[in-house]
Each structure stands twice: as structure tokens, then as C-alpha cells.
């Protein structure tokens, strides 16, 4: 969980906040929320694909 938190923060900060402003605007927040959901989708998909290949 700690690992996931750190990776999501790293990846989604890069994707969503290219030039940091004085506050986290609502579009930044939306981007971060979506990015986090997609990162977890990706993690599940990669996990499944890897397990299937191992069989």
C-alpha cells in the first residue's frame, strides 16, 4: 500500500501538475483522482496479464 501510494503520487504529480501554482485547482484535483483510478486499473490489468503468462 505504501509502495502504491508513493508510485501513484509520483506518476500522477508528473502527469497532472506540470507547472505548480499557488493552489491545487479543481481541474488538477480531478486529473489526480482520474490518474489514480487509472493507475490502479493498470496495476490490476498488469497483475492479471503477468499471472496469466506465468501459468
Amino acid at each position, binding site marked *: 500500500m505504501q509502495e502504491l501510494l508513493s508510485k501513484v*503520487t509520483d506518476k500522477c504529480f508528473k502527469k*497532472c501538475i*506540470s507547472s505548480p501554482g499557488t493552489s491545487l485547482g479543481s481541474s488538477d484535483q480531478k486529473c489526480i483522482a482520474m490518474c489514480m483510478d487509472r493507475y490502479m486499473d493498470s496495476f490490476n490489468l498488469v497483475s492479471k496479464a503477468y499471472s496469466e503468462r506465468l501459468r
Partner: protein
Amino acid sequence: TEKQKFQNIIHELNEKCWDTCMDKPSNKLDSRTESCLKNCVSRFLDANILITERLEKKATEMLNNHDSMSLE
């Protein structure tokens, strides 16, 4: 140690914000880069809080729906 842990966080944060804010190094830290660095630290912490809360919410939902739904 606590101090070492603090130093590690600063090193990592500085690396990220340097990559985000620093263009070509010049004689002095100009005000635009300075603002960018300060904002970068604050926005990174904001993002971290947002993600932590959302992650906890999702973990709770998963636990609650454990019987009726699969993880997927």
C-alpha cells in the same frame, strides 16, 4: 533515525521539484524558479494528501463490499 528519514524525504522532494522547476542554472535563483519550487513542495503535499484519502476510502469500500463484489 528520524533525522535521516526527514533528510531522505527532502532529497527526494528536491529532486522532483528541481526537475519540474529548474531550467538552465544561472548566477542566482530567480524569483520565478523560487516560486515554482515553493509551490512544487506545497502542491506535492496536497496531491499526496488527496491520494492518501482516496486510497483509504477505496480500501474501506473494498472491505465493505467484500462479500458481494470481487476486487477487480
